[in-house]
């Protein structure tokens, strides 16, 4: 190793961070190189200077005062019980809040999807009342509304009363064959 490499490693040599082989080659070089010896000596003197600073310690009366002032600076409303509770809930709260939020969103959209809006509800009712197939049984109406996610007992009762008072309409099968609402038509056919 040349002087530049040796001098770059002097700090690690002095602080005992070098491994065996490297220490030996450093020492071999240092024994024969006055420039690197001088550099090492300068570094040792620098460390000697660092050690001339006296240790810094608070005098005993200051130490007591220190703790009292720390206590005064700590906000009095935070009591240890609260801290303990906060610690216990600490892991749960960050997970609970997003989980509840997601849950609420899912519930909201789920209900929104399951329960027809007022408009859809009105359309369903109108569909039944204006249908030429109003002689169909109340079971069908029940199925129809349940399948579509709506079960209003008052409405069902009204529909049943209405249908019971009506006559059977001729030409029902032909009409059904021409109807494009496949699912509805299929249900009605099954009921016939």
């Amino acid at each position, binding site marked *: 190793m040349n002087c530049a490499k040796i001098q770059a490693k002097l*700090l690690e040599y002095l602080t005992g961070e070098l491994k065996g082989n490297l220490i030996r080659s450093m020492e071999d070089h240092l024994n024969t190189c006055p420039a690197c010896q001088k550099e090492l000596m*300068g*570094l040792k*003197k*620098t460390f000697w*200077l*660092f050690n*001339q*600073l*006296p*240790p*810094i*310690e*608070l005098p005993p009366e200051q*130490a007591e005062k*220190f*703790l009292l*002032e*720390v*206590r005064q*600076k*700590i906000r009095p409303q*935070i009591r*240890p*019980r609260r*801290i*303990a509770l*906060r*610690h216990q809930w*600490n892991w749960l709260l960050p997970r609970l809040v997003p989980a509840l939020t997601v849950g609420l969103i899912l519930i909201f959209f789920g209900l929104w999807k399951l329960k027809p809006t007022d408009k859809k509800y009105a359309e369903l009712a109108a569909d039944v009342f204006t249908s030429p197939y109003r002689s169909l049984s109340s079971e069908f109406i029940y199925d129809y509304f349940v399948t579509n996610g709506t079960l209003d007992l008052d409405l069902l009762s009204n529909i049943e009363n209405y249908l019971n008072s009506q006559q059977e309409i001729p030409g029902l099968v032909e009409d059904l064959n021409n109807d494009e609402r496949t699912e509805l038509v299929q249900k009605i056919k099954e009921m016939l």
Partner: protein
Amino acid sequence: MPEDHELVKRFQNGEEGCFDELVKKYQNKIYALAYRMVHNSEDAWDLAQDTFVHAYHGLAKFKEKSTFYTWLYRICINLCINFIRLRRTKSPPQTNESIVMNTPARNTPESDFYQSVLKTALATAIGQLPEKQRAVFLLRQYEGLKNEEIAKVVGCSVGAVKTHYFYAIKRLRNLLQDWV
């Protein structure tokens, strides 16, 4: 005296007195570190106290991924670095001229005079190191922390700690060349 992790655990479970034990145990070290960082006893006093106030409020979240004292040192170093940066914006840093201005009166006994001047020169030289270099140097030289611990305190790699330390020594040697 109980171990740090035991005191921390008990404090987290509501034993307020355990925090006082931790303060008593570390107040000297934290004050010394703050003093050497900012070289002013009043500021060091406040910064050391603020370190414990921050620790009090953060202790509930402390999960012992690091040791308590490295965590405490980290709080202290961060507060000191912020303080130094703030102070620098308010007033320009001290230059070499101020070393002369800060030297004590000549009528001090010789050894005390020498010690006092050396202390001032050293403190001024340390004060001229960039904040991270200063922190690394002080933690290693005066707190005896290992490179791995310093890396956690300062928030950098072990390699970066070694580099900071190397350049800190190099710079201090240049600044103190009249003394060596």
